[in-house]
């Protein structure tokens, strides 16, 4: 019976090649579209997240600003000034702060031999490495002794190292920053990052101990500081505690949003995730509609097939087929066509993804992924559409009056 069914089906598909191709192409294209849209959707989302995390994962950036509210008789418009000493106490006393780093930023003249560049120099503390993912690919990052002894050591981003040293090993070499010699202690790995605050991306920066920075360039107050919360889910509470503590210490209202400008990355990441989930659902819906159109094509072709094969149905009923045998036959045929089309679409999509030069496009679209979820969703949609588009023709076929059918 099953063998006879497939014999019948393949004969039917081969008999009308053009019709078969047209029918299959709708479903094939629909599946192809769903899979590619979802694969690219996930790929783009992941890549954006990765680039974004080039800045660090779930961090809180704080920029001291100016008060806009009076506080205990103090007027508004006062600058909020945070010293590195104050930050040391923040780390000890504010709950929810795992670690933090002050940051000083400016553009400086950096020279090695005859190469001279104007790049961003950042004065930072040791935890900066783990907070902002400035991972050394070679050598090391700024360490505690560098900070304590105000050493003139620097850590370079990959791009600036390449531009200055042209392939030479920079570690141990001496570079001049504003005419002052610094020893290169390490070079950062390549990393994806699509933006930065106050200055160039990390790959273009030179990092020096904050103590050295303060001494050399005469700074007293930090430009900003970066906090890594113990629990990113509780970042809001951590920020509130931070405002309360610093408000009391430095004299500003904890409700004064402009006294401390705070950029909460974990909050941003949550929104970003929501956005990309919505984006993927949107893509999935668009793909599903394409697939649905393919399903409608299958349904209408099956209607024609039922018309054409009314005599066959009559004969089968006459020799003892039950109405449900006929129903199943046409239902299964519609589903087989859809599954064949779906398999072809899946195969084509997989082929395209395999042949696509993803390395070149990765920075923009990431690596499109054929993840299992995409597969499951596509199969579910295909089954739903197979059911919808197979049922109507199958019911019409099953309702054939054998007497009328046999007279044709």
């Amino acid at each position: 019976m099953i063998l006879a069914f497939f014999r019948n089906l393949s004969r039917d598909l081969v008999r009308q090649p053009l019709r078969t191709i047209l029918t299959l192409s709708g479903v094939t294209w629909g599946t192809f579209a769903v899979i590619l849209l979802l694969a690219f959707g996930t790929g783009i989302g992941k890549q954006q997240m990765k680039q974004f995390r080039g800045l660090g994962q779930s961090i809180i950036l704080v920029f001291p600003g100016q008060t806009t509210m009076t506080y205990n008789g103090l007027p508004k418009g006062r600058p909020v000034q945070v010293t590195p000493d104050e930050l040391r106490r923040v780390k000890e006393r504010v709950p929810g702060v795992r670690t933090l780093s002050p940051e000083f930023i400016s553009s400086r003249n950096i020279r090695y031999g005859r190469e001279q560049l104007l790049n961003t120099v950042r004065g930072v503390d040791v935890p900066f490495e783990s907070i902002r993912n400035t991972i050394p690919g070679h050598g090391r990052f700024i360490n505690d002794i560098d900070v304590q002894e105000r050493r003139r050591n620097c850590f370079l981003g990959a791009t600036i190292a390449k531009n200055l040293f042209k392939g030479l090993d920079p570690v141990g070499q001496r570079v001049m920053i504003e005419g002052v010699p610094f020893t290169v202690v390490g070079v950062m790995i390549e990393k994806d990052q699509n933006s930065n605050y106050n200055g160039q991306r990390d790959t273009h920066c030179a990092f020096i101990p904050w103590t050295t920075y303060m001494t050399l360039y005469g700074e007293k107050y930090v430009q900003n500081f970066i906090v890594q919360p113990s629990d990113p889910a509780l970042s809001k509470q951590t920020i509130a505690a931070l405002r309360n503590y610093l408000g009391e210490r430095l004299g500003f209202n904890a409700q004064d949003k402009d006294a401390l400008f705070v950029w909460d990355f974990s909050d941003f990441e949550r929104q970003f995730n929501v956005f990309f989930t919505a984006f993927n659902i949107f893509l999935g819906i668009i793909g599903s509609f394409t697939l649905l159109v393919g399903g409608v094509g299958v349904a209408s072709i099956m209607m024609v097939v039922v018309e054409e094969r009314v005599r066959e149905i009559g004969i089968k009923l006459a020799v003892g087929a039950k109405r449900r045998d006929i129903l199943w036959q046409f239902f299964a045929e519609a589903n087989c066509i859809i599954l064949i089309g779906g398999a072809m679409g899946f195969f084509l999509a997989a082929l395209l993804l395999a042949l696509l030069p993803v390395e070149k496009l990765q920075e923009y679209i990431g690596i499109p992924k054929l993840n299992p979820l995409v597969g499951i969703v596509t199969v579910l949609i295909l089954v739903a559409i197979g059911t919808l588009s197979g049922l109507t023709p199958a019911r019409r076929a099953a309702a054939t009056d054998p007497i009328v059918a046999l007279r044709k």
Partner: protein
Amino acid sequence: MIEFRNISKVYKMGEVEFVALKGVFIAVQKGGFISIMGPSGSGKSTLMNIIGCLDTPTEGSYYLDGENVSGLTFDQLSTIRNRKVGFVFQNFNLLPYASAYENIELPMLFNGKKNTERKRRVNELLEMVGLLPWARHRPTEMSGGQQQRVAIARALAMDPPIILADEPTGNLDSKSGHEIMDIFSRLWKEGRTILMVTHDPAIAAFSQSTIRLLDGAVQENGAAH
């Protein structure tokens, strides 16, 4: 074996009613060979369809092997058609894209018979109708007489006790027609019950007796040949 008690069949086409059969009583014993004659529109086809359980009467009871089948559902009647009745049609009604083998196999596909059993039975039937070398050919590659022999083999696939033939020789030349009638005679002698619609008295002469229909009523029953 076949008993009609006051069977009527009325077709409704919108407001218009068409009475195809009115108050028909017939009884056919097991092993009978009956021809059914009458002008077109006299109700021959309707009578055959009801006997073959393709159609149901509007009124009256139909007893097949002592069982009242008038009230059964379509799918219950399908089972009866499959086991008890073999149809042979004037226009053969073979599946055009299937081989002779597949056409004969068809009724057994709706009965869950095993593959080996089907194969044995199909080959047995092909041999019986003398078409074993034609097993893989399609109906379009065969003569009318050969096609009708395939159709008879199909009708016999489930070994039904009743064969219903609606003008089985109507589309055939007289030589092929006689070959077909020889097969029917043989089947009758093996003990099957045969009912056959025909216009041709020479063909009706093969049967035991004739039922004549006119305007949906039995005009003459049991005229022996």
